[in-house]
């Protein structure tokens, strides 16, 4: 038995997209235990619920995260709409779903790039992010923003997309798909990439359920769980089925996300084909009534939970967001036990961490 040492990892580390600190207990290059600590970028956004009216709070909630910004805006609006018993027009729900799936495409492509960067394949990383720009351009064209869209509001959406632009979205995505196939082929079949991913950091199905893993992390371990099945948006009408893999290793997590990109493109195409004409918003006036509402949404990173509590005033009494990274940290710590020190960045990246979401 070798000597145990503690190696500090983060919060500043070349591979980490965001600050988290891990104390790695090492024994002969093997990680015996990992102790995570967060709290470097807590911003107190939930506290702002007392200072911003419920209609204005969307702008704050959207800024919880730059990648799943639209999802956060939608989740919040859905919670407040539920609290106030507002029926959103169908076209608005379609538009929200289209933007949300576009977010998933760009989030997963960003993640693929980061993963490539994590295992040291720089050109693959660059190509992933180059392709992702096309999705961002679509966002700029349809919403006016590249990262923060400010397009979701309580009662609907603020901007409509015309028929030509909707068709353009599909054609751009289909064109992108050709190049994307080359990239994903590298991720799934390249010898050196596979040697870094296959069999690393296996999380069993039992552990995934016990440690409450969420999103692609759980689905890669064979857990049939996706909040899009619960019927938010129009996913029921699109015939949605979650992508599930059973291996539970880094490769399976990568494959789940790659399959989800293609699935999202299909979902967008289906939504564009069936989108009805009509209003995009209903006017919302008055105070938020007393009561509570809970909603769950499938973010690109996993299940996200929103809780809104009204107090018969223009201000909500409490707004709570529980993000997928929060749920995936225990599962990540479990996978770190027994891995090589060189695989730690990879294992950390495969949960698709977003620490600013996690701390808000």
């Amino acid at each position, binding site marked *: 038995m070798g000597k145990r040492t503690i190696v500090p990892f983060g919060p500043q580390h070349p591979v980490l997209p965001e600050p988290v600190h891990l104390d790695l207990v090492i024994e002969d290059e093997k990680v015996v235990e990992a102790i995570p600590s967060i709290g470097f970028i807590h911003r107190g956004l939930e506290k702002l619920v007392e200072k911003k009216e419920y209609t204005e709070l969307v702008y*704050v909630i959207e800024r919880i995260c730059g990648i799943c910004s639209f999802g956060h805006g939608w989740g919040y609006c859905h919670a407040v709409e539920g609290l106030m018993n507002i029926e959103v027009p169908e076209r608005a729900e379609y538009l929200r779903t289209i933007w949300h799936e576009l977010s998933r495409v760009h989030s997963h492509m960003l993640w693929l790039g980061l993963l490539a960067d994590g295992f040291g394949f720089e050109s693959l990383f660059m190509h992933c992010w180059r392709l992702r720009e096309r999705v961002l351009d679509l966002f700029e064209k349809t919403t006016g923003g590249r990262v923060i869209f*400010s397009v979701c509001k309580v009662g609907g959406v603020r901007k409509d997309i015309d028929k030509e632009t909707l068709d353009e979205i599909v054609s751009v995505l289909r064109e992108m798909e050709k190049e994307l196939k080359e990239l994903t082929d590298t991720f799934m079949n*390249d010898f050196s990439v596979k040697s870094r991913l296959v069999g690393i950091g296996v999380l069993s199905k039992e552990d995934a359920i016990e440690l409450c893993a969420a999103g692609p992390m759980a689905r890669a371990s064979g857990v049939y769980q996706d909040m899009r099945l619960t019927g938010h948006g129009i996913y029921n009408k699109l015939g949605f089925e979650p992508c599930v893999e059973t291996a539970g290793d880094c490769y399976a997590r990568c494959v789940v996300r790659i399959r989800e990109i293609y699935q999202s493109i299909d979902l967008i195409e289906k939504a564009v084909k069936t989108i009805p004409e009509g209003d995009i918003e209903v006017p919302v006036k008055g105070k938020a009534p007393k009561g509570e509402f809970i909603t769950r949404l499938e973010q690109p990173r996993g299940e996200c939970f929103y809780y809104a509590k009204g107090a018969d005033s223009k201000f909500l009494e409490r707004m709570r967001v529980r993000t997928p990274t929060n749920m995936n940290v225990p599962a990540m710590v479990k996978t770190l036990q027994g891995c090589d020190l060189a695989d730690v960045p990879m294992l950390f990246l495969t949960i698709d961490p977003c620490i600013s979401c996690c701390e808000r």
Partner: protein
Amino acid sequence: MGTLKLGKMTMRSLFKKPATLMYPVIPREWQERTRGHIAIGVDKCIFCGICQKKCPTNALTVDRAGGTWTIERMKCIQCNCCVEVCPTKCLKNENMYTTPSSEKIVDSFVGTPPKPKAKPKAEEPKEKKENGEKTE
């Protein structure tokens, strides 16, 4: 399974234009909806102050008496809220970003506020009197 899966794409990109742009030396193409910065047609502005009230980041200051409309560029989040609520539609979201700066830019626009409607003279002393009586 094989190696050099990315070879084709890498070779292709060798003979293409770079994917990045030398911004801001080479200007980029803006989309019609791009939310770049808020511009005001100050001649049309009636200095009602609704934009100031609705601004989520308190970036706007409207001085009705002095006829100034001020925006703190670094505070503005380009949410388009003020543009939507403006009753005279004098606010516009232009699609070019503001230039980068190391200082907090404050832009002020001076216009002529509409003159307040003159009240009938007879009522003014009466009101004063009433107020006076209450305080006594």
